[in-house]
């Protein structure tokens, strides 16, 4: 549990760290959308350059990003193999019964792998450089037009930020409970499926009971501090759109629109 890097925030003061979370969210979203337009070497090259430039601008070593990909390694291998063996068409390199390795199979495996890695990496840049709370703020701000139709944007954002706030606490708690049960002789991750399911009970029940009690205490504390409903509150945190955000937007727009242009007009 200690080694999971995916989705974690790494404090820093880089260009990307200092960006407005709204800008990061929008760019990340656009980037992922445009990945599906990329279809050849040149378009993927532009996407890769854009990504690497962002990695450099985040001042976090590429090594750390690669580390972040590791938990998804097997998923990637699996998807690639499926594509290799089941993609049909083009030159056949190898065949065994209904399994075959074909030109098209290899191509689409390459494309899937490329898309997979790019999508994971761009979202990792977002999570490495943006505090979860800032992401919540960003989402709230981007969704704020929905207020007009009485959608409880602020309440949802507060719920999201509270949930994020207590993720580390609950992780700690889970680890403590696991340690306590290990000390009472439970072997996690051993034995058959039935055995494994049995070992989950001594974790889940205390975890659930604690989370429930904690939730009650937290809501009591919030109410004691004057929390009534989510919508009629002022906000302490404010997002600031700066020149750096506009520049990032421009750079991305140039890159992303060239990908679309390469695909359709050249």
């Amino acid at each position, binding site marked *: 549990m*200690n*080694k999971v*890097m995916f989705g974690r925030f*790494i404090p820093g003061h880089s260009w990307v760290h200092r960006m407005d979370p709204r800008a990061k969210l929008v760019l990340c979203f656009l980037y992922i959308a445009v990945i599906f337009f990329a279809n050849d070497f040149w378009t993927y090259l532009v996407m890769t350059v854009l990504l690497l430039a962002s990695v450099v601008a985040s001042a976090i070593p590429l090594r*750390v990003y690669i*580390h972040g990909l590791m938990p998804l390694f097997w998923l990637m291998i699996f998807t690639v193999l499926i594509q290799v063996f089941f993609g049909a068409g083009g030159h056949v390199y190898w065949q065994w019964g209904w399994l075959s390795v074909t030109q098209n199979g290899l191509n689409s495996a390459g494309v899937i792998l490329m898309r997979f890695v790019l999508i994971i990496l761009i979202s990792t840049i977002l999570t490495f450089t943006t505090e979860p709370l800032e992401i919540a703020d960003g989402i709230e701000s981007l969704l704020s037009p929905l207020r007009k139709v009485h959608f409880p944007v602020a309440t949802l954002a507060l719920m999201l930020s509270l949930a994020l706030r207590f993720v580390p606490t609950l992780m700690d*708690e889970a680890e*403590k*409970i696991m*340690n*306590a*049960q*290990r*000390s*009472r*002789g*439970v*072997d996690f991750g051993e034995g058959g499926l039935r055995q494994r399911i049995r070992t989950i*009970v*001594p974790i889940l*029940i*205390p975890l659930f*009971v*604690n989370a429930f009690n904690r939730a009650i205490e937290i809501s009591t504390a919030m109410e004691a501090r004057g929390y009534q409903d989510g919508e009629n509150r002022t906000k302490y945190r404010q997002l600031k759109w700066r020149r750096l955000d506009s520049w990032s937007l421009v750079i991305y727009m140039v890159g992303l629109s060239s990908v679309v242009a390469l695909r359709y007009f050249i």
Partner: protein
Amino acid sequence: MATDITFEQVNYSYQAGTPFAVQALKNINLQIKSGTFTAVIGQTGSGKSTLIQHLNALLKPSSGTVTIGDQVITNETNNKHLKPLRKKVGMVFQFPENQLFEETVLKDIAFGPQNFGVSEADANELAKRMAGEVGLDESLLSRSPFDLSGGQMRRVAIAGVLALEPEVLVLDEPTAGLDPRGRLEIMQLVTRLREEQGLTIVLITHQMDDVADYADHVLVMGHGELLKQGTPREIFSDPEWLTAHQLGLPSATRFAYELQQAGFEFETMPLTVSELADEIAPQLGKGDDRHE
């Protein structure tokens, strides 16, 4: 059977190899003799909890060796061979009531032994005995552990660890959050276990009075290092050093220093109220003379 515990050049880092790595133990060398009562003290974050989790190999040293009885734990030790150790070293964590999960108190106490191959019937017998040991009424055994008071839940949790019949009992601030009566009862339970069953006790505490009253060996942790070790008398003989490391004195000792200012003389600084009284009684006039 002696279960001496030895740490040799033990280092430990959390999340080693990531940008979040924290070195929580630095070059720890120490020995805990079988049958002793060792107190571990130190500021918050000094590494006390990290240290004791090495005693049953919940954490394995990043480098160095920990020896418990005849078992040697290093970074390479395979997780498969740790089970006998888990039985030998019982671990009571902070707020241990957070680990309760069974439907009844009896089942919860009997859970541990069954993981070590004890039959259900034998485990239940053991559980009843341990419940008595920690002062839980028989009538509570069929209740849900979640319906008990805080103090009672804590006893159930301790009984659940005692049911493993360990040789070493490790407790991380077992009295936190209890009222003074509850605190006293838990501490008396711990001393009784040591005296009657010869358990080795390792106790993390912030209560210097408890250290003075019960411990015979003290480990002082600070910023991941073992700053000092010795008998309570040795540790508490240097108030300036303790203050510099954000630690206090037992209240009797602190009071004795005040009396020293007021002209009293002490051969050795007292650690407990009864030692204090022994020292000052001969220096006092018989009070009743004055009330004539």
